[in-house]
């Protein structure tokens, strides 16, 4: 029998002591400011008084304000070493963390490169914070959360409070802080007259934004109305298609599931503009299909593609896989025994599906719809290529920032409109889901088989999904074809020239990667590979907190994690440049800013997927683990994560792919040294060099496909039942 000391003063002071040491080490040993050549070059070690000077060294060298965070550590030391009661110690730790962090943030915001904001600080100046400051802040943060947990919050679980603290801090720094820079602009008065509310409301409710004239047939609708209409159509469409694919996968014995799987993934890994271009070549006024129908049936060649339906079609192609990825986990998770129960109650397969399986998939459906809606609202590439005169908020925002007359206030206001739409969708989704329990993977093992689909439903699924799959296949065949011909659409002579220009390797005095694309290709893959696991980790951790833990301000917390997703990439890009170009946090022109942008922009997908998957895992599984002496972290690692294989896979895949294919935020954040593939492709497309653009896109698609298959093999599927059985039809 192993003795186990009760968690109390001992555990608390041990944990707090650890963070105190880490924080102090960061303060005294690591370089406080960013160092030339990057932290990992480790060159700063050679210059302990110069480039590599720690906070301690700097404060002794005259930057006295850097001694402020020491106050926090001093209080913490009293708490850890003193022999006060548990309550007093906990309160001291909370005080230590709060004071230390507040002083750290205050000095960062007050003392800038060009001098302090307050005259009484003299001529103090400093550059962007580096590793030392980050570790110091982390130490203080966890001292604070350890203190809070010892006050009895979060069931006294230091891991949970620490995790909440970490996510809140990260979201605050990397979502709220930069967004504040942009949103302040919404209240800017025209002609530099300062700030005020007087112009905000009229501009927010401007009929040019909310106009509904198109429904009366008398003109254009405002971009807000267009965005909503498009978002609802795309959300509903992708959810329905995603469900059809998910059902075919889990409930039928369809033979070519692997092929189908690849097809459902393809659009998500396609760089922007490529789908739009392919659609133009197929359905444009001179497109292949258009010409065919014109010749065969005498149909008039029209430009229908340029507008609502074209954008919708492209978005359906682009976003159906997202719905599928969300839904497949959910559909797999519906417990066979519930379906069996229904069938034993004399329900036929259709009734079983309609009244048992479908309602159990509600969280998945709601999440899929929400994601589709938000993706559609934030989508920028497709409306740009196919929008014609159909304006949506995302393109309007982009051109308000980069257009001939830059109007940041308009961009900020339209961003707020977009945000309010997302917020509404979010609230409606919550209402619809209500407080019902959708857990179907309980600790009671179940060995049944998933009910097969009834013939009519199966026919519908096939009827919807298979033509769609064929369509996707045609689009992609065309894309590959386009990369091997001289001039797509005009001169179809076979050539390898595009690939050579992009990916040539010269072997002469060693191996030289001389192709134009190599540089951005390597950068892109490296950054995506770093961003993906971080995104998945932050996203799933957040989902875990939201589903499994209760803490004050949870609803606000949940919404704030959705924010960065709802804001169009363009706005995020500009916000990041505005916020992170100056001390205290100076990240522009680094790879880090790209990674961070990806992590916090794609995190909501991990969160939504995680929530859907977790709400299907019965809470008693966690509780059982906790009761068996495991702490929250062990429970997460050994019980929850293994059962969330598909959700993790989805989060990893999605964030990896999004880091490679997203463009709108990236355009502002790429720098000479860290160029990204999409930025490169967009440049080529703008220049009309479709050949090299799609050759590059094809290589990226193949790369991502390989990566996804590798991930799948690595993470695999849950083994809840010995075999994945589907009842024979």
């Amino acid at each position, binding site marked *: 029998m192993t003795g*186990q000391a*009760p968690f109390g003063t001992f555990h608390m002071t041990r944990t707090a002591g650890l963070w105190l040491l880490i924080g102090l080490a960061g303060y005294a040993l690591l370089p406080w400011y960013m160092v030339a050549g990057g932290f990992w070059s480790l060159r700063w070690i050679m210059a302990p008084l110069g480039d590599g000077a720690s906070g301690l060294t700097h404060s002794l060298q005259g930057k006295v304000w850097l001694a402020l965070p020491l106050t926090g550590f001093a209080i913490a030391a009293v708490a850890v070493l003193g022999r006060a009661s548990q309550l007093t110690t906990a309160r001291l730790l909370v005080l230590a963390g709060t004071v230390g962090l507040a002083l750290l943030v205050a000095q960062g915001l007050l003392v800038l490169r060009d001098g302090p904001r307050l005259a009484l600080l003299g001529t103090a100046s400093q550059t962007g914070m580096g590793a030392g400051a980050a570790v110091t802040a982390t130490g203080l943060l966890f001292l604070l959360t350890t203190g809070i947990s010892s006050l009895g919050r979060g*069931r006294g679980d230091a891991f949970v409070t620490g995790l909440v603290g970490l996510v809140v801090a990260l979201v605050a720094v990397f979502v709220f802080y930069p967004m504040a820079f942009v949103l302040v602009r919404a209240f800017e008065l025209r002609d530099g007259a300062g700030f005020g509310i007087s112009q905000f409301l009229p501009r927010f409710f401007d009929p040019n934004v909310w106009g509904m004239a198109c429904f009366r047939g008398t003109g254009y609708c405002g971009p807000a109305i267009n965005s909503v209409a498009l978002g609802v159509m795309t959300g509903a469409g992708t959810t329905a298609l995603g469900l059809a694919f998910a059902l075919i996968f889990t409930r039928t014995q369809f033979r070519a599931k692997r092929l189908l799987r690849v097809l459902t993934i393809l659009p998500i890994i396609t760089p922007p503009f490529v789908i739009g271009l392919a659609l133009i070549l197929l359905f444009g006024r001179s497109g292949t299909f258009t010409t065919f129908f014109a010749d065969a049936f005498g149909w008039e060649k029209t430009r229908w593609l340029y507008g609502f339906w074209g954008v919708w079609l492209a978005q359906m192609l682009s976003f159906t896989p997202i719905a599928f990825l969300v839904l497949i986990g959910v559909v797999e998770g519906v417990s066979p025994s519930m379906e069996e129960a229904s069938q034993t109650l004399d329900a036929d397969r259709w009734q079983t599906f309609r009244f048992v399986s479908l309602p159990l998939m509600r969280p998945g459906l709601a999440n899929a719809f929400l994601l589709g809606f938000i993706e559609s609202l934030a989508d920028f590439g497709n409306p740009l290529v196919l929008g014609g005169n159909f304006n949506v908020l995302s393109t309007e925002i982009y051109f308000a920032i980069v257009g001939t007359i830059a109007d940041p206030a308009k961009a900020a206001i339209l961003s707020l409109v977009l945000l309010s739409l997302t917020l509404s969708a979010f609230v409606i989704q919550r209402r619809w889901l209500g407080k019902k329990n959708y857990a179907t*993977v*309980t600790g009671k093992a179940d060995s049944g088989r998933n009910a097969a689909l009834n013939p009519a439903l199966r026919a519908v699924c096939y009827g919807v999904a298979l033509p769609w799959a064929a369509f996707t296949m045609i689009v992609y065949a065309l894309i590959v074809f386009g990369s091997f011909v001289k001039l797509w659409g005009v001169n179809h002579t076979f050539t390898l020239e595009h690939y050579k220009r992009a990916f040539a390797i010269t072997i002469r005095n060693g191996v030289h990667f001389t192709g134009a694309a190599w540089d951005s290709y390597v950068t892109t893959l490296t950054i995506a590979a770093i961003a993906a696991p971080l995104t998945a980790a932050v996203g799933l951790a957040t989902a875990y907190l939201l589903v499994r833990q209760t803490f004050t301000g949870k609803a606000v917390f949940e919404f704030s994690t959705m924010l960065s997703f709802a804001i169009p990439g363009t706005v995020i890009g500009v916000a990041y440049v505005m916020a992170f170009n100056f001390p205290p946090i100076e990240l522009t022109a680094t790879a880090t800013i790209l990674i961070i942008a990806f992590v916090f922009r794609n995190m909501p997908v991990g969160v939504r997927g995680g929530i859907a998957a977790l709400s299907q895992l019965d809470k008693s599984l966690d509780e*059982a683990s*906790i*009761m068996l002496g495991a702490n929250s972290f062990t429970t997460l690692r050994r019980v929850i994560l293994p059962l969330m294989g598909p959700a993790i896979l989805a989060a990893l895949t999605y964030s990896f792919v999004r880091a490679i294919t997203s463009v709108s935020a990236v355009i502002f954040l790429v720098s000479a040294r860290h160029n990204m593939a999409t930025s490169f492709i967009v440049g080529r497309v703008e220049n009309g060099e479709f050949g090299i653009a799609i050759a590059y896109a094809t290589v990226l698609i193949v790369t991502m496909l390989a990566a996804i298959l590798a991930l799948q093999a690595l993470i695999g599927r*849950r083994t809840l039942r010995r075999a994945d059985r589907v009842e024979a039809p």
Partner: protein
Amino acid sequence: MTKGSVRFEAVTKRFGSVVALKPLTLDIAPGTLVTLLGPSGCGKTTTLRLIAGLETASEGRILIGGQDVTHQSATYRRVSMVFQSYALFPHMSVAENVGYGLSVKRLPKAQVRERAEEGLALVGLAGFGKRLPSELSGGQQQRVAVARAIVLEPEVLLLDEPLSNLDAKLRRHVREEIRQIQQRLGLTAVYVTHDQEEAMAVSDRIIVMKNAEIAQEGSPHDLYDRPASAFIADFIGDANLIDVEVSQSGADTEIALLGRRLRVALPPVPNGAAKMVLRPHQVRLTRDAQGFALPAEVTYAAYLGNQIQYTLDSEAGRIFAICAPVAAPFRPGDGVHVTFDPADVRLVPA
């Protein structure tokens, strides 16, 4: 020696504005099996989860083994739990499930395997270790859950409706096993159920809860024989509750029933309206009146082999009776007289 004792000192629990537990004080002696019994929503599960550490008390102190654990997280409490749904980890084998708590404590692998096997043997599942939970029957899964909880040798074993997913026959068998294991290991066990028969069968002591507080506690016999309220009398075993008037309370209580006076023993209740508790098997039926008798009419008769159950209509209301089988049972429509031994009668406040 307080090891294994559980003590609540004025513990309350609120979820928002909902009171889940009114100030509760209780003591559970080491080595006993105590059942929390009551209808759903009575606070019994909340009480169990407070002992487990899965909920934090809003006020009051909780002590386990004499130590204040009010703010201690579930992880560090030496308490194990068997869940209603069993909560077996579906991705782990049976042996991994049972050994989970041990491996979490970083015990050497060989020792974990050995003790998991011992635990499985204890519940009669030796050799099932390699299977997945989904390959076991419901009863077997339940036993795995018990094994998983007891290999940790907890101070207190909690069981949350452990039998509710089993069929009636298996239920009796498993509850005997649980009781035997508990007694063999000398564990303190807290058992939550809404099934009074199950509670009576396994418990040293029963705590009946109603509306977020204790209605009555005592040994099964106490509760059955000396119910403190109509609720307990009805909840613990069936009871006919008949309105009476207590005219003189004391050592020898006199009650008035339908205008007739009757002397009964035990227990004293205040003068005025009260309810008389008459257990179904204490009801005697005769064709003819002999002394004190209530005229009644048989409305329903059910022959169950070892007994006959009657439902009767009388002036005092509906009466339910259980009689030994006889050659010529009463039939619906027969007029009968209900009599009973005044010594059997118990009184509870109206």
